Each structure stands twice: as structure tokens, then as C-alpha cells.
């Protein structure tokens, strides 16, 4: 009786984790598709890298940590993402949560290896980041 119970719990766990993995793969697939298919919605946003003129420290970036003045560090560069907050296809919260911070991990986690987001990000570059 006891071994039957253990067997049923084990099979329940195996099936549950299979369902978890299937949902994870589906969600990953859908998010990859939607991320790679989006394009900048504002024609005024130029996909051109601005000339780097200044370097900023984390303290300077932290001074711009609000939705109305949002600077973010990604891969040792500093970006002014204030104008992008309302246009981000993934929602404004995702950008606001990175204001005044080093968002390298967050950006690479969400958009690593995707050209469009890289291009959009580069259009907001205002300088480099010095530790």
C-alpha cells in the first residue's frame, strides 16, 4: 500500500515537471518570436549609433533613476532611455525598473543576440560607463 502511494507521488511529480517544462519551452518560444519581430514604432528614432562623447560613473547614472529622467548602463555604455519608456513593446515597467542601474544582465537575458533591440538601444547611447 505504502509503495503504491510512493509510486503514485513519483509519477505525479514526473508528469507535473514535464508539464512545467512544456509550458516553459512554449513561453520561451513565444517570447523569442515576439521579441525578434518588433520594430521601433517611432520613425523619429534613428537607428544610428551616436558619437560617444562622455563617460559616466554609476553615481552619475544613479542620479537619473526616475521615469522622467532615466539613464541605464548596458555593457559598459550609458543610455538615456527616457523617451523609450512609453514605446517599449514589453511595457514601460521593464524599462523603469532599470533606471539608474546596470541593466546588462536584464537586457542580455531578454534580448541577447537580437539585432533589433541592440539597434534601438544604440540609438539612445549618450556615453560610456566608467567603474
Amino acid at each position, binding site marked *: 500500500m505504502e509503495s503504491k502511494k510512493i509510486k503514485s*507521488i513519483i509519477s*505525479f*511529480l514526473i508528469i*507535473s515537471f514535464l*508539464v*512545467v*517544462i512544456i*509550458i*516553459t519551452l512554449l*513561453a*520561451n518560444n513565444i*517570447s523569442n518570436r515576439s521579441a525578434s519581430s518588433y520594430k521601433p514604432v517611432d520613425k523619429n528614432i534613428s537607428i544610428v549609433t551616436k558619437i560617444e562623447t562622455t563617460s559616466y560613473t554609476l553615481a552619475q547614472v544613479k542620479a537619473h533613476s526616475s521615469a522622467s529622467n532615466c539613464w541605464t548602463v548596458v555593457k559598459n555604455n550609458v543610455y538615456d532611455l527616457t523617451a523609450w519608456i512609453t514605446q517599449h513593446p*514589453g*511595457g514601460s*515597467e*521593464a524599462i523603469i*525598473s*532599470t533606471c539608474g*542601474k546596470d*541593466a546588462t*544582465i*536584464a537586457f*542580455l*537575458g*531578454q534580448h*541577447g543576440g537580437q539585432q533589433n533591440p541592440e539597434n534601438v538601444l544604440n540609438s539612445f547611447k549618450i556615453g560610456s560607463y566608467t567603474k
Partner: protein
Amino acid sequence: MNEINLVSETLEVKMKRFAPIVVRLGLAVVFLWFGTQQIINTSAWVNLIPSWITSISGISAVGFVHFNGAFEIVFGLCLLMGYFTKATAFLLALHMLHITFTVGYNGIGVRDFGLSMATISIFLYGIDSWCLDKFLVKK
């Protein structure tokens, strides 16, 4: 007087019967909400994933959020239905304790500690009168 006491005792027994049900259903809704949010609005959760988890596991932060969300949805549903209640509550309690430990000592960590304890109480109590398990055992 005796009749009044009897009624109040019966009422108390009935109320006690609902205590584990309320905790189980309430927690299940919390897990389901957090799980679906992680799947639907992943970008808002990516920043909460500590970098050491992605570097150790080799899974991207997005993949990790999706896995976490799927885990909470699947086991949240099991908790809601009361299916394999003890095993489900045990897994969710471990999950919550891990999150509490990772988040550390702050407002969110203390809240998650409370949720962990509530999940442990479901595990300790086991099958309540509204659990699917109870009906399956009867059959």
C-alpha cells in the same frame, strides 16, 4: 443554556473545518497570479533574478522566469484543486523558502517568509475536506 453552548460549539467546529481550506485556496490564488504574471509580463521579473543563478545554471534569465512561472502555475493549480496536496505543498514550501533565502532580509523577504510558513502549514495539515484527494481516496 446547554443548547446555546452546543450550537456555539458546533459553529466553532464548522468554522475550524474551513481554516485549512481558506489558507489553501488563498495561497493557490497567490501562486497562480505570480505564475501567470511571470509568463505574461516576463520583462518585469527578469531584474529580480540574481546573476549567480543564471551563471550557475546556464539558463537565461528569461528562461528561468518562464520556468519559475510555469512551476507556480502547475503546482498552484494542484494546490487549488487539492490534488496530491501534501506533495504539492511540500514542493511549494521548498520553493518559497528558497525565494525567501535568495531575497534576504527586507520587506519582500519577510512577506515571503510568511507565505512559506503558510505553505508549510498546508503541508503539515494535509488533505482538507474540500481537497480532490479526499474524493479520490473515497473511490
